[in-house]
């Protein structure tokens, strides 16, 4: 895992990615919730404009670079250091904010310690509300419950403000009640 995260950091340092943040189940795992089943590593990215200007596919330069390093496609994923990675464009306003405000967290692996960018839990929960699938609701509930039962890590006022700002009040009320 740390090798995959190191590659993401290299892509950012080399300017192929302007900024990235982990997403999905793996991002949620950095908070005090129990492990949940997942098969890929979702990564939100801002692609550097100068790299994408000449191509219709904004990810083209990134994919070419990873291909030149020997990483191969399997279905929708690029297998980077043993992990299927899916790059997702950070386009929706709340996702842009999530990536911009992501915090640096340590991954202490078997081989090395790597710093990676993880969205604040409030933004992860907002993204879960937007996605709205059963697994998103389950993860939302895990984070909500973990915050209530253990040492608090959620800024509930920030979450409420974000929910109001992006118009997910009804679903939010339903999910925190269920």
């Amino acid at each position, binding site marked *: 895992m740390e090798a995959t995260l190191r590659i993401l950091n290299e892509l950012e340092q080399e300017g192929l990615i302007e900024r990235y943040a982990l997403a999905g189940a793996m991002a949620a*795992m950095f908070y005090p919730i129990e492990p949940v089943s997942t098969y890929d590593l979702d990564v939100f990215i801002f692609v550097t404009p100068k790299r994408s200007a000449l191509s219709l596919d904004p990810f083209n330069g990134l994919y070419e670079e990873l291909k030149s390093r020997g990483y191969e496609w399997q279905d929708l994923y690029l297998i980077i250091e043993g*992990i299927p990675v899916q790059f997702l464009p950070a386009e929706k306003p709340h996702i842009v904010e999530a990536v911009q405000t992501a915090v640096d967290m340590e991954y202490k692996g078997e081989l090395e310690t790597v710093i990676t960018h993880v969205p604040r839990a409030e933004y992860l929960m907002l993204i879960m509300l937007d996605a709205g699938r059963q697994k998103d609701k389950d993860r939302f509930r895990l984070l909500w419950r*973990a915050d209530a039962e253990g040492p608090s890590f959620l800024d509930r006022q920030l979450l409420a403000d974000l929910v109001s700002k992006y118009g997910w009040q009804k679903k939010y009320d339903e999910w925190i009640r269920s």
Partner: protein
Amino acid sequence: MNIEQIAESKKKFRSRLARLPINEKVALIVSMQRRNAPILSARGVRVHVWQIPTPSAADIIRRLSKPQQTKTSD
């Protein structure tokens, strides 16, 4: 053990899982992937089990279960 004690014990175990360091959570995720892959494959769903070095999932579970076992044997 009555049903309340079992429920409480499960809650404590989940709480210990939640507090694991991230690399140990990843080890448990990979262990789940290994167990689920044949089942998913039989249903026609292809998954890629992560090929990464991780701590032993069995050791992690054994360690987490230890305080509970000690308490029960008292």
